[in-house]
């Protein structure tokens, strides 16, 4: 079974530039999550999708971050404009149903460096 795919794996940009990350979840998984992991910390949820609808985006900085999952399968996360503090690893995860006991499967992440 193929895992969660993410691209690119690494990205370096200047502050105030824009960047986009892509995620393809495990086939059949209805729920997709984006997490931000700052160096030395645990991941923090940015947004949760159930199929193509947003379930929770309360921790997404909406003035600069946006995300979509148009067909209920793959998803993109965009940052525009980027700030220095956005340097982090962006992790995508998926689960079958999105319940509290459901296992989330994580992709390898995209490491973003903002200069």
């Amino acid at each position: 079974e193929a895992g969660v795919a993410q691209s690119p794996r690494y990205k370096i940009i200047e502050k105030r530039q824009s960047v986009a990350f892509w995620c393809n979840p495990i086939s059949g998984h209805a729920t997709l999550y984006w997490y931000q992991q700052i160096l030395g910390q645990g991941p923090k949820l940015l947004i949760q999708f159930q199929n193509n609808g947003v379930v929770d985006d309360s921790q997404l900085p909406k003035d600069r971050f946006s995300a979509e999952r148009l067909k209920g399968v793959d998803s993109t996360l965009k940052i525009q404009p980027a700030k220095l503090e956005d340097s982090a690893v962006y992790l995508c995860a998926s689960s079958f149903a999105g319940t509290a006991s459901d296992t989330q499967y994580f992709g390898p992440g995209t490491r973003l460096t903002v200069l």
Partner: protein
Amino acid sequence: AQSVTQLDSHVSVSEGTPVLLRCNYSSSYSPSLFWYVQHPNKGLQLLLKYTSAATLVKGINGFEAEFKKSETSFHLTKPSAHMSDAAEYFCVVSDHSGGSQGNLIFGKGTKLSVKP
């Protein structure tokens, strides 16, 4: 609100000796608890999870954890450490509240070092 506290930021053991990584949780609900491992430059991998069945949970690679409600703890153990166990370990509680079901709340992580 749910939260987890990993009591040690760094644990160092010798190969072949027991491993103990400590975690305490706070939850208004009957929690779902997880341990994930993250090797350098690799994604997070599930070690084990507790979802209100048996309180002693066995995971992959010889790890196990015991859910103790009276102590609000979910410590991770392994009888004998291997060099390949060196990694960052995260204790995680799942959010049961309303529309945010399934959101994972991570601890700050414990870095495990294994000395030869």
